[in-house]
């Protein structure tokens, strides 16, 4: 060959591979054992008889156990949502017709406030498993699942539909079959967004876990041993020491997850970045590096994981060649017919199920009196107002602060991990402490409710504002300086239009969170008393508690309807304006 290339020495990934100190291996081993023990212990606990009013031990020594249980619930729910969302998105992409139904469904599901059906889900599952703890655990897991799955599904779906055409063509031309295409192209391409979305989903998930672990519906009170119930009980008993310890533990868990799970994952997933040149500093993780050097992990990788993976690959790699989404080359006739029939069948079944559910729901609906409907209407208005106020307050402080942080490279680097951690701390954990304070003031529950909404959601807005500010192209900023755009003008012509799409995303997420917060903050049982205020969340919580299921259903559906309507009519329009006018491209 004419050309001779000489390879420049690059930093290989396997430097000093097997010279890892022994203590890393020891740590990994201990971690394995600990994990196994924890799983077995948890499984045995599930089989125990149902103890709804299970006692929560407020001593500090039980905290690690409670933290472990809570984390385990989160992990199970997360794995389920991950598998579901990957499968769902992949199916939607493979079948155009299905996609037209599946994606809007996802959209609606994402808009429905999750906590609105928490009471219903808990009651149903407990009724299903009256004699063991499983019903409650499942309820918690289902709840967390619903808070994560739609988000992840959307993310993966978006990845699948934005695969660069040439990569997709290459996979088609070289006749990769479904499995090969999935593992070599689709999954790697979607990994980075999935990792980021998983981080955010976990942050949101903690919030719902706290709500699910300690639930009081009227006379019944359901309790799962975990951090959430610990905090609730501590607040109820007025034990500030325990409360602080509990909060501290939660923060420790979140920080540990950040260090030992998320940062390594982000560093590892950097290899999937679709970039033509080696960019600036890639994210690094000490943990990842050390784990990579561990002998134990390497041994398992080479002798267990790799052969297993290769065998799986070979078996699954024998399918027929497939092409990707959208415009596919002709598929043999019979297979196409089969697919079409199967598609219609599935659609038919789904439609039937939906019809049955609607009929059932209607039966309950007619039991609601017009007076009650009127109450629901007023309540909806009240909660809407509260959510709007919370949102306005959030925007009011996060925009100036966020922009300031975004413009300063020093601060934005520090702020990012901080904001993430803050966003992860469920406001619900602090809520009991807030209650202690606000309930003493007349009309206090209203304020507490708004405060909860604010606390839970302002971080999303802040995060997005920072991201939007950082995304302002350098040359636009310089132009602003050159043309002496200062003060209000700078805001009007540069900053606000630039961050508008990001702000919008943040606000949409925030309102969803606000509605969820309303359910647990407008109707509370605290220190033996029940406090309530006018609002849709209160209606839902109280009707669930008193067993008025018709009202519960009506209120839940109303809340869902309001959120979806506002979403479509208001946010969607704004989003379209944002895309058309303010898209910086």
């Amino acid at each position, binding site marked *: 060959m004419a050309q001779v*290339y000489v390879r420049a020495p690059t930093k290989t990934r396997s430097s000093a591979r097997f010279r890892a100190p022994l203590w890393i291996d020891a740590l990994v081993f201990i971690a394995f054992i600990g994990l196994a023990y924890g799983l077995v212990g948890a499984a045995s606990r599930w089989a125990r008889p149902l103890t709804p009013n299970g006692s929560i031990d407020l001593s500090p020594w039980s905290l690690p156990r409670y933290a472990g249980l809570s984390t385990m619930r989160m992990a199970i729910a997360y794995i389920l949502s991950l598998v579901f969302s990957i499968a769902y998105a992949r199916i939607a992409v493979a079948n155009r017709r299905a996609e037209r139904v599946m994606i809007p469904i996802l959209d609606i599901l994402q808009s429905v406030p999750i906590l609105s059906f928490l009471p219903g889900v808990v009651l149903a599952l407990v009724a299903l498993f009256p004699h063991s703890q499983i019903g409650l655990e499942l309820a918690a897991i289902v709840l967390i699942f619903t808070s994560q799955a739609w988000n992840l599904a959307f993310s993966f779906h978006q990845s699948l539909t934005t695969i660069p055409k*040439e990569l997709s*063509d290459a996979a*088609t*031309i070289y006749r*990769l079959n479904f499995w090969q295409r999935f593992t070599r192209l689709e999954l790697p391409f979607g990994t980075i967004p999935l990792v980021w979305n998983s981080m955010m989903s976990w942050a949101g998930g903690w919030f719902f876990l706290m709500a699910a672990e300690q639930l009081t519906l009227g006379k019944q009170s359901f309790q799962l041993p975990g951090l959430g119930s610990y905090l609730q009980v501590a607040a109820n008993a007025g034990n500030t020491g325990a409360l602080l310890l509990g909060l501290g533990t939660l923060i420790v868990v979140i920080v540990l997850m950040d260090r030992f799970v998320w940062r390594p994952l982000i560093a590892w997933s950097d290899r999937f970045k679709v970039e033509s040149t080696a960019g600036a500093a890639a994210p690094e993780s000490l943990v990842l590096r050390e784990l990579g050097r561990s002998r134990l992990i390497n041994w398992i990788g080479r002798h267990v994981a790799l052969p297993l993976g290769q065998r799986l690959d070979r078996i699954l*790699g024998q399918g027929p060649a497939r092409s990707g989404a959208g415009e596919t*080359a*002709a598929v*043999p006739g019979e297979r196409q017919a089969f697919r079409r029939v199967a598609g219609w069948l599935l659609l038919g079944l789904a439609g039937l199920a939906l019809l049955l559910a609607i009929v059932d729901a209607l039966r309950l609906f007619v039991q609601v009196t017009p007076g009650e409907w009127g109450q629901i209407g007023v309540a909806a208005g009240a909660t809407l107002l509260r959510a709007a106020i919370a949102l306005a307050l959030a925007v009011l402080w996060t925009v100036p602060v966020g922009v300031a942080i975004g413009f300063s490279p020093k601060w934005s680097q520090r702020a990012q991990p901080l904001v993430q951690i803050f966003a992860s701390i469920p406001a619900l954990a602090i809520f009991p402490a807030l209650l202690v304070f606000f309930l003493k003031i007349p009309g206090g529950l209203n304020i507490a409710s708004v405060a909860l909404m604010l606390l839970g959601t302002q971080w999303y807005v802040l995060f997005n504002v920072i991201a939007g500010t950082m995304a302002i192209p350098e040359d636009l900023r310089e132009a602003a300086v050159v043309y002496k755009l200062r003060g209000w003008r700078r805001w009007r012509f540069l900053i606000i239009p630039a961050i508008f799409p990001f702000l919008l995303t943040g606000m949409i997420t925030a309102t969803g969170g606000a509605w969820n917060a309303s359910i647990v903050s407008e109707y509370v049982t605290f220190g033996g008393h029940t406090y309530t205020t006018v609002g849709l969340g209160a209606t839902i919580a109280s009707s669930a508690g008193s067993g008025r299921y018709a009202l519960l259903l009506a209120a839940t559906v109303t809340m869902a309807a309001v959120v979806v309507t506002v979403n479509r009519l208001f946010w969607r329009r704004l989003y379209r304006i944002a895309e058309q006018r303010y898209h910086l491209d």
Partner: protein
Amino acid sequence: MAIAAQSSPERAGVPLLEARHVSKTYGAEGSTVLVLKDVDLQIREGEFIALLGPSGSGKSTLLRVLAGLTPASSGEVLSHGAPLRGTNPNVAMVFQSFALLPWLTVVENVELGLLPKGLTPDDRRKRAEQAVELIGLHGFEGAYPREISGGMKQRVGFARALVVEPELLMLDEPFSALDVLVADTLRRELVELWQEHRIPTRAILMVTHNIDEAVRMADRLIVFKADPGTIRAQCAGLPRPDRDSKDAAHNDLVDRIYQVMVNPKADAVQILAGAEALEAVVTPGGHSIPTVPVSHLTGFVHRLDALGGREDLHDLARDLPMEADELLPMVDAANLLHLVELVQGDVVLTSEGRRFAEADIAERKAIFRHQALANVEILQRIVALLEKAPHHRVTEDGLLDALEKKFSPVEARRKLNTAIRWGRYADLFTYDDDRGEFRAVIPPPGAEVAATRP
């Protein structure tokens, strides 16, 4: 030199890949875009074909339709004579922007095409490493795409394509994203691999907008036009071994192609016909009647016979002597009538041609009539129309309109006039100048036995 190309004997047989009346439309109802219109293309063994044209002329789309990546909206694609369903299994493609998976190393990327072949991982790895060595990237097997330069990335693209030993190699503007020197080197290496038969590929199809590149590498050029994408001209017979950028003939051809591409309305065939470097230029839709008077044709055939019945095209032009512009339509016409044949750059008299040359006037007419009816489409059409027409009379308007769809009005008129002349000579019909009307010949009794006339 412009001659209506015919498939020469060594290229006979079923084409590797063929597009028949392929059209492609993009978009939904309401706003559709016709990207390709009625494209015919045959790819045969041993050919290196370049698809040349401006952007928007649908050449990349045609490539994708032929590869089976996207279905044609109408028309069909035949692979080895059978309709193509799904992706074409005999094709490997090299992409303009390399299309390497960023999370796989060089050797893993090259292996990609081998995955569906059911080899063991070791086998795969070995073959991939051989391919990596073939394209000169030995030592870089473990590198990731972001660590190597553009030229190296495209080499990986080539290795990936070649390792599956494709029958047909398709290149979609493979060198346009590379800088000049790198692209030059890669071009030369590819041509070397192709000519020295170091790769088992049987044909190469390359899309490019670089005229120089196309002329340098391919031995058949297909010039496209845009809006909608159709073929303007097919040029064959580019000599390759002595291609040198300083060669005057090469530069002349590049100039002509440039002219053609710059002016979408120019008569591509006419401009290209004058290029020395070409062996043949074909108009799309094949063999329309060349505007050559019968007397010239007769004289030409005579001269060829006198020269021994076989002569190299270039020598013929020199010996006659004639300008290329004059000779080629003549050879075109003779070829159309199957009086001569093109074999490896030589013009060879067929048996009919020999008889034609040695016949007397009457027999010549008969032979001409026979050949014309068998081979010239427009004459066939006129005769068929006359048979069915009331009173066996047909005006020329319909025929003129049909011709004007493919040619300029002037050219269409000229072709029709030639058809009239040929037809009159061959006693196929008569023509009324004043009315512009064709009339069937009422054969005088016994006139079919024309050979007996003195």
